[in-house]
């Protein structure tokens, strides 16, 4: 029987969500490919992961090696290329995460396997695999076909729901093909983000600013936003470009490489709604977006939207919120 490989992603003793999303998201596809699902687990001291994964796959293929203790794309690539050559899975899935972005392209190129990155769905067309992925910041979807099998794809976080299928996996331990130390790349350490004075994950209300606010170091711009946040008793957070510019500290960034927030109110001002941002705020109770562009993807996550220049809307909104407070 054909196999689908799903590469298990884990970090510092924890399995990452993307692993379960891939294992559950590929089930229909595996069925249509007449393939079973193999979770490929590489690492050191990973017995507890085997237990956690048992109900999620048909098989767990385990390779343990001290050299796999911390993620090293080079070491992972060598083990995976060995396993793929030996077992010839029809499809290999890897997360489109920092880990997968570092690993998958070189692995695919080494093996000469077509790789579609950042996929959000799949179809079979006349027996050939077609991947769906986004372009232009989420404004366009693309259907992309793989010329030859086997296939490889990286999967966007949260593109699939993790639903436990209640399987009971067979466990196979394979010897590590790593014979020598990896010298081209060496893991040194993890560095935690600095802790700032405001914890946006605890805020009940958030006013979030994006590139649409323009120059956030400008006093006038800043005070317009701050006044609204003050009236709402909200904390100010932002999208990535604002942090990249150094206008707000990193701990105010919402998204995959920043914080995940779930406030009662998330007011997005001048944020387009790239998936890396949305992943960090989509669980908020009420989401409001103000954006000039009616096609901005943020409006597909928001509950309420205003299509306009935020600088025209925000001062009036501040005034109206002030009135509402005074009026009761």
């Amino acid at each position: 029987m054909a196999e689908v490989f799903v590469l298990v992603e884990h970090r510092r003793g924890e399995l990452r969500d993307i692993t379960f999303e891939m294992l559950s998201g590929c089930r229909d596809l595996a069925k249509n490919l007449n393939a079973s699902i193999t979770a490929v687990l590489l690492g050191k001291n990973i017995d507890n992961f085997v237990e956690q994964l048992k109900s999620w796959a048909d098989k767990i293929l385990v390779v343990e090696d001290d050299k796999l203790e911390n993620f090293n794309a080079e070491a992972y690539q060598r083990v995976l290329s060995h396993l793929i050559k030996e077992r010839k899975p029809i499809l290999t899935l890897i997360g489109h995460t920092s880990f997968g972005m570092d690993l998958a392209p070189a692995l695919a190129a080494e093996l000469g396997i077509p790789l579609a990155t950042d996929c959000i769905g799949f179809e079979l067309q006349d027996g050939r695999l077609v991947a769906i992925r986004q372009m232009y910041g989420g404004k366009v979807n693309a259907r992309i076909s793989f010329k030859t099998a086997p296939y490889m794809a990286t999967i966007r976080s949260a593109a699939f729901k993790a639903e436990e299928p209640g399987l009971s996996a067979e466990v196979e331990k394979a010897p590590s093909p790593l014979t020598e130390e990896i010298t081209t790349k060496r893991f040194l350490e993890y560095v935690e983000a600095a802790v700032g004075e405001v914890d946006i994950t605890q805020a009940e209300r958030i006013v979030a600013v994006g590139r649409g606010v323009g120059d956030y170091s400008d006093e006038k711009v800043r005070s317009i936003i701050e006044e609204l946040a003050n009236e709402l008793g909200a904390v100010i957070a932002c999208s990535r470009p604002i942090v990249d510019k150094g206008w707000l500290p990193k701990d105010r960034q919402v998204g995959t490489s920043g914080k995940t927030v779930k406030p009662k109110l998330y007011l997005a001002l001048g944020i387009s709604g790239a998936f890396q941002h949305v992943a960090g705020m989509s669980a908020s109770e009420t989401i409001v977006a103000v954006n000039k562009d009616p096609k901005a993807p943020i409006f597909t996550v928001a509950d309420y939207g205003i299509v306009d220049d935020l600088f025209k809307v925000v001062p009036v909104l501040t005034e109206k919120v002030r009135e509402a407070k005074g009026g009761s």
Partner: protein
Amino acid sequence: MKIVVCVKHVPDTAEADVVITPDKKGIKKEGLAFGINEWDEYAVEEAILMKEKYGGEVVAITIGGKESEDTLRRCLAKGADRAIRIEDPALEGSDAYALAKVLCAVIKGMEYDIIFTGAQAGDDGFGQVGQTLAELLGIPHAALVTKVEPQDGKAKVHRELEGGLEEVLEIQLPAVLAVQTGINEPRYVSIMGIRKAKKKELKVLSLSDIGLSPDEVGEKGSLLTLEELYIPPVEKMAEILTGAPDETATKLAGILDERGLIPK
């Protein structure tokens, strides 16, 4: 230090109305502003910072039409020493793998210590070309790089992970480093820079110049085929409040109040 930086000329679609062409293979370019890919702006800055600190040369490379010379000129004006543009009709329909083959063909005969690329291109968003290039050149790489400190024959590199975490690793040079935004503060282009850039070399190469056959690139030389582009179906849409700012803001304040979201 010999540094190569790969840059792409891309449309800014953040605020634009994106229209798909009738053949469904591309988007209409009319009315779109083009410029250097956001990630590449940081890659170029990092390349120039390295040169300023350690001496050497920065070569900017792009695969693209005549219009992408704007992006190369920008790199030259900021401090790159020379630029190379590869253009060929056979390149149409190239996937990330084919583009990496082209970059590899240009770069492999050059001297280099570090090749900088962006972590991803804002248009196709593959996040793939740099790492693939490294594999084809047979050198190591690191993706999502947020800090680089070269130290004889090696570099200490920070990679961005999720949730604000970073990992630090040591990588042997030469290597491909795919740069994440925020790694530095890209400089502005100065008038003086623009003037100097005019005198710098900008070489245009075709496929045969770099020793590739048309079959190795384009749709033939790619492993993926773009079937079609389409506008994503809208599964959920916000309730859009309409009217002048006065009205919309008033409506919104009313909704927030009703939902108990205004602290009293």
